């Protein structure tokens, strides 16, 4: 990895890490025993650990001079490994807190392990850790392949990837110490947020500069989705996290937004985090890896353009459906409701485009579990966008809001769509990246597919049942006009569903563990192509055995 950098690039990397380590020391000194100080120590340890890696190969021989003739795949490989590590962590936390809801003693009577602190470690772990790393890794792959150009930087891809993971670590370690902004999916505090802005702007510039180098005249649509993901997440993140810290050495901050404006800004952020973090980037994956795996071009390129702009412009307005029946002005609620219903059109255009691409190749879907992952993802994308439009209608929302139906909807999207398309993409990407014919074991991909599908279905059906029962129990009146059920009555009715939900989640976690093993064995255990060297498994044999037009 480090040997691929020139000595001046190694110096730059070392300088960046020394500066980061000094920032860590300053944070520790200012924060003292405050969580801010603990985070200073974490920044210090992280930077010094990476510095040690850089220095260990500091005087290694210079890399080849024709690096531009090959793609830059090292950061992608590390990104995949980090993504899978976060998947296991985030899904384990999910199973744990799901089990806590059924058996509350599993909080072990400690502050750090209460549901309120562990729940954001699950959401951050799976959305940002697993999903974010998978998005960064696949975006680096897709932009290079579709542009026919190498990434426009040697250090910046590492800065983006490792800097983003530092943000995730600061966020997750903060939650268990009780650090939170109390904004859903934006819980991390001001200093972590500032750091993410630096990382994200670097990501944006890197992506633009790589596109500027492209040899392909047209920018393929998958890149548009990744660009929308990068640009909009930056805007959302900055606006929602505008806050004033209580002091420079303290983790706590207060948002500059107040009252109903704060709620609206938060859900404008929150719903667009679903739209542009959990949808746009993953649609980018789908538009590249699904045609690639099926060996067929996308059904309609024009439709992909129309649905891209539809999604980009409709989603921005949909956030207020999270605030039905609140102090938010009625017309703003109506606006959110209307745009949410209209969103069904571009969403189904994408889902239909994916399924019509597979039309005529169903035998491949039957035989290839990787393609089946992506097919199921497209189906769940269609289902959960339909459900989302439906739940956004105000009278429906009066039944579903604050119940487990919402949790079921989120997981139909997050498990059935986001995780399925990610695993499908990774199973396509990993053999290509490590120059293998196929994954280590096709049978294990099959096992993973059925574990994931069974887990998702159990989870989603449990939450649909539980949510609708909850909603109905909360609104059932007796003949005297009093509520028929107490809150505890509805809680007891949830008990079997909570057990089923934890079991479904466990199956999904087991599937992810199988995937980790399979990816590890593909990368390491299969004999490498002859003539390759340690740390450089792909370049030389690839250019040696298959001369490119460049040579």
């Amino acid at each position: 990895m480090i040997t691929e950098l020139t000595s001046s690039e190694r110096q730059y990397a070392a300088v960046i890490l020394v500066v980061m380590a000094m920032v860590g020391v300053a944070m520790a000194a200012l924060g003292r025993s405050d969580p801010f100080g603990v985070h200073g120590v974490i920044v210090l340890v992280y930077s010094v650990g990476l510095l040690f890696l850089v220095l260990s190969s500091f005087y290694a021989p210079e890399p080849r001079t024709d690096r531009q003739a090959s793609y830059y795949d090292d950061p992608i490989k590390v990104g995949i490994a980090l993504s899978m590590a976060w998947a296991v962590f985030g899904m384990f936390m999910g199973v744990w807190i799901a089990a806590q809801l059924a058996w509350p003693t599993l909080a072990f009577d400690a502050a750090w392990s209460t549901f309120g602190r562990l729940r954001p470690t699950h959401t951050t772990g799976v959305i940002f850790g697993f999903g974010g790393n998978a998005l960064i890794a696949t975006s680096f792959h897709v932009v290079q392949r579709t542009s026919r150009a190498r990434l426009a930087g040697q250090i910046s891809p590492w800065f983006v990837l490792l800097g983003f993971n530092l943000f995730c670590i600061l966020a997750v370690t903060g939650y268990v110490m009780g650090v939170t902004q109390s904004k859903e999916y934006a819980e991390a505090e001001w200093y972590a947020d500032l750091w993410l802005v630096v990382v994200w702007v670097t990501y944006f510039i890197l992506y633009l500069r790589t596109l500027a180098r492209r040899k392909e005249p047209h920018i393929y649509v998958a890149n548009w989705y990744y660009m929308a993901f990068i640009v909009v997440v930056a805007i959302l993140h900055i606006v929602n996290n505008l806050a004033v810290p209580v002091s420079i050495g303290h983790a706590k901050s207060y948002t500059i937004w107040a009252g109903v404006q704060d709620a609206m800004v938060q859900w404008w952020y929150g719903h667009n985090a679903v739209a542009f973090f959990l949808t746009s980037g993953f649609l980018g994956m789908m538009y590249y890896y699904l045609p690639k795996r099926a060996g067929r071009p996308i059904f309609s390129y024009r439709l992909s353009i129309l649905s891209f702009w539809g999604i980009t412009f409709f989603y921005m307005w949909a956030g207020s459906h999270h605030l039905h029946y609140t102090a938010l002005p009625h017309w703003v609620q109506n606006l959110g409701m209307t745009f949410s219903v209209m969103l069904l059109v571009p969403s189904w255009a994408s889902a239909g485009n994916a399924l019509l691409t597979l039309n005529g190749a169903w035998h491949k879907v039957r035989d290839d579990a990787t393609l089946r992952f992506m097919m199921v993802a497209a189906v769940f994308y269609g289902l959960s966008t339909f459900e989302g439009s439906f739940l956004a209608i105000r009278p429906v929302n009066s039944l579903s809001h604050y119940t487990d139906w919402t949790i079921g909807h989120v997981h139909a999207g997050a498990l059935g769509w986001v995780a399925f398309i990610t695993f499908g993409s990774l199973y396509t990407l990993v053999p290509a990246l490590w120059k293998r014919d196929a994954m280590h074991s096709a049978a294990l991909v099959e096992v993973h597919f059925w574990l994931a599908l069974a887990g998702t279905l159990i989870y989603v059906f449990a939450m649909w049942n539980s949510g609708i029962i909850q909603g109905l129990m909360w609104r059932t009146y007796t003949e005297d006009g009093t509520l028929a059920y107490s809150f505890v009555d509805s809680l007891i009715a949830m008990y079997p569903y909570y057990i089923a939900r934890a079991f479904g989640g466990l199956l999904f976690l087991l599937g992810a563990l199988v995937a980790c093993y399979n990816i590890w064995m593909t990368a390491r255990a299969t004999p490498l192509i002859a003539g390759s060297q340690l740390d450089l498994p792909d370049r030389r044999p690839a250019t040696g055995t298959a001369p490119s037009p460049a040579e």
Partner: protein
Amino acid sequence: MDHDTLVAFSKSWGLFYLIAFAIGVCVYAFWPSNRKMFDDAKKNILDRDDTPWQ
């Protein structure tokens, strides 16, 4: 600027620019001379991709 002004602005111009944009996107997607570019784009990603083009 009071609340009513803002509401009037967003209800009129918000509508106009979204419709104008939708028409623009449709024209771009269905413009006859763009057809070849789109067809190439969707087929080219399936080609060999082991090294960058120089």
